[in-house]
Each structure stands twice: as structure tokens, then as C-alpha cells.
């Protein structure tokens, strides 16, 4: 059965390692912070100027001066640090952030990503996405395998305006975990109960399928 958004977040959380500094985009990526494995220290960065972002505040903790990049009220963990946007993007650009998780409209077999603009629609802006994809050491995309029309979002090349070139290393969808390498998607895992045929059929880009494709271990 295809994963729901929590399932995708749980699977991505399995990529976390102790000591990682991680930036999570808006949407499904944000949910990943709920599934940090027990006993592991993972520090979340928010590009508006937080290292050590904590959970949402309880009502009495709400502080208008403390928000995340999604403009939501948040808290700080013990040992957090605050800084300005220039410093924050310096940190990102210098490769100090180990992992960025973000959503996408399209990903190509070359690791290109498009997630900011649909021609003909009102463009809200790229925010920090172009800086994040150009700077982070490792980028995982969390998205649905297909768009609402049922068309594959894993393509030979992106049709939408790009956010970044050749930067995505891994994609986690409701159906599969895929690595991107040497101009191909590589099927690593399938969602529990999902058949390889469905993934093949919904992946428009070149897809390498090994003989045995394990099921994701999600609980």
C-alpha cells in the first residue's frame, strides 16, 4: 500500500544519523522532525536564523519574535543558536548543513529539481530553495510519485523551470525510495505491498531495477 505523508517522513527519518545538521522544507519534510530515532541527536536548522529548532510551542511559550522559515511559531532546543539570514545562508552555502529535505514538482534522472515556478501561474518566489539545493551536502526530495493528473514527476528531464542542476541524490515517494546516479533513477526500496510494476509504470525517467527490491521497513 502506498505510504501516506507520515510514512514518507518516517522513511526519510531513517536517513538521519547522529550529529547531523538538517534543514527541512515546508510540507512533508517538516514532519521528519517527529521521527528522529531514539537516542540520536539531530539538530534542525531553519534558514531564517535558527540552529537548534525545537517543536511548536505550547500556548504560553508562543513568542512572536521566534518563528521558523515557514513563518510558524517554534521553540528552541537547549544549545540553540540564533543568527541573521546572511549568516544562515553562509552556513548553507559552505556545506555545513549535512542534509536538506525538500518537496519538488519534478525531479530528473540527472538529479535536476524543479519546485518553484509553474509558467502561467502566479509565481510566489523561490525563497531559499535555490541556495539550499546549491549548498547542502546531501539533498533528499520528498514528494508524490505522480502529479494530480497521474503523470510521473520522475522525468528524463524537468519540463518546469529548474531550481537546481544535478543536486538531488535521493527521492522518497509514497511508492518507493530511489537513488539518482549516473543519469538514472535506481530503485532501492518499494513501499510495503507496492509492486515493482507500478513503480516502473509511474517513473518516466530511466529507471534501474535490481533483481530484488526490498520493501521499506516502516512501523
Amino acid at each position, binding site marked *: 500500500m502506498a505510504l501516506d505523508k507520515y510514512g514518507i517522513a518516517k522513511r526519510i527519518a531513517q536517513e538521519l544519523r547522529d550529529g547531523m545538521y538538517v534543514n527541512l522544507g515546508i510540507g512533508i519534510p517538516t514532519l521528519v522532525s517527529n521521527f528522529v530515532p531514539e537516542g540520536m541527536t539531530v539538530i534542525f536548522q*531553519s*534558514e*531564517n*536564523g*535558527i540552529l537548534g529548532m525545537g*517543536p*511548536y*510551542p*505550547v*500556548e504560553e511559550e*508562543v*513568542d*512572536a*519574535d*521566534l*518563528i*521558523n*522559515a*515557514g*513563518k*510558524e*511559531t*517554534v521553540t528552541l532546543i537547549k544549545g540553540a543558536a*540564533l*543568527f*541573521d*539570514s*546572511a549568516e*544562515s*545562508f*553562509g552556513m*548553507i*552555502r559552505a556545506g555545513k548543513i549535512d542534509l536538506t529535505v525538500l518537496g519538488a514538482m519534478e525531479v530528473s534522472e540527472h538529479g*535536476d529539481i524543479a519546485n518553484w515556478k509553474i509558467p502561467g501561474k*502566479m*509565481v*510566489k*518566489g*523561490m*525563497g*531559499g*530553495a*535555490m*541556495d*539550499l539545493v*546549491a*549548498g547542502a551536502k546531501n539533498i533528499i526530495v520528498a514528494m508524490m510519485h505522480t502529479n494530480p493528473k497521474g503523470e510521473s514527476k520522475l522525468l528524463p528531464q524537468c519540463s518546469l*523551470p*529548474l*531550481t*537546481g*542542476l*544535478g543536486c538531488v541524490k535521493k527521492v522518497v515517494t509514497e511508492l518507493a525510495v530511489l537513488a539518482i546516479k549516473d543519469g538514472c533513477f535506481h530503485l532501492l526500496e518499494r513501499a510495503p505491498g507496492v509492486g515493482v510494476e507500478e513503480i516502473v509504470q509511474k517513473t518516466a525517467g530511466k529507471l534501474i531495477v535490481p533483481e530484488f527490491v526490498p520493501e521499506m521497513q516502516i512501523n
Partner: protein
Amino acid sequence: MNKVFASADEAISDISSGATLMLGGFGLNGIPENAIAALVRKNIQQLTCISNNAGVDDFGLGLLLKTKQIKKMISSYVGENAEFERQLLSGELEVELIPQGTLATRIQMAGMGIPAFYTPAGYGTEIAVGKEIRDFNGKHYLMEHALHADFAIVKAWKGDTLGNLVFRKTTRNFSTSMAKAGTITIAEVEELVTPGEIDPDAVDVAGVYVHRIFEGKHYEKRIERRTVRLEK
């Protein structure tokens, strides 16, 4: 040396139509509420506003949009504002979108006297069109230029009469860099204190960058997305 102004209206009194302004804040977080209200009252037109976002319909830069005082916005993300969208689609408003890190760094460089620098953000995208592209150690970078403004308008938590500023939590955002990039920098503060009351080790923006300072009133500090959890 007197940098202290009695009110927002006095502090912005010489900003005229057609000026380029930097306005600090991220969404509604840490915005110069008093100065924005004064700009609305003054009703100057044709402003170019450099600000990461464009406020919401009835607060922040949205107030200046409503009164059609803004000719052009230079931002990274402008998605929270219906009037903005209307003006943009009707061609009344011009928008230049810049990657957030590039925007922050272009402003920072202006305050450091560095006219141009190289960043990887936007390589291979439409942002790179027309820009110098260069390789350093096998990676591609775009040349980007420092971004200046006639006036930088920021809001800090505390400030002293010499112009030293201290910020709270995530309100630093673009404000600390903008404060250094304005030809004239105007700071509004929640609390204006005398020199010596701010620990020199705690200053976020040194007074040398700040030309005018005033104590703001009635901070609303509106929250854009109030997210809470239930249990402690």
C-alpha cells in the same frame, strides 16, 4: 552627535517618491511597524522596496501595497498577499525575485564594501541568464553584485542613542545586514536606552551604521502562522 528622532514621521520625513528602501523583517517577524505606518501616512509613491517578503494584506508591507505606494518589490518569496497578486497580474506592480541567500548576501556585501562575489545558487536556472558564470575548483558559480538602498529601515529590540542595536530571537533575519547597507539607516527600537546600558559584547549592529533611531510605539508583533502543540 544626535541620531535620536522623536517619532517615525520625523525619522522618515526626507524619504521622497521614487526612493529605494530596504525594509527588515521575515514575513511579519521583526518588521519596522512604526516606520511602515509613517510611510503610509506620508503617502510617497513609486517606491522600490527590497524586503524578503511583502507582508500580508492588512499588515507589514501589505499596507503600502494597499495604498499603491510600491512600484517594485525585490524579494525572495511573496506568496501571502492577495492584493499583491492582483497588482502583479494587472501589471501595476513590478517584482524581481532573488534567491533568499543571494538576496541576504548581496545586502551583506553592500555593508562590507564588496561590489561583487560568486555564489552557486541559481546556476543552471533562469536566475543565471545574463550573469557571468565562472568555475572555481570545478564548481560553477554566478557573479552577483552588492545591493544598496537609499534608506534601510529596520526594527530592533533595544538600541542606544549612539545607534547600537540588539535583536531578539529570529528578528535579526535581513535586518542586521540591511542596517549596514543603507545610505541612510533608520532604526526603530522597542526600547531606546542611554549609552552604556547595552553590553558591548552583545551589540548586533554597531552604531556607526545607524544614522537615525527612535523608540517605536504600540508594537503589535502580529503572528503569521500561530502553531502550537498541546502538551508540554
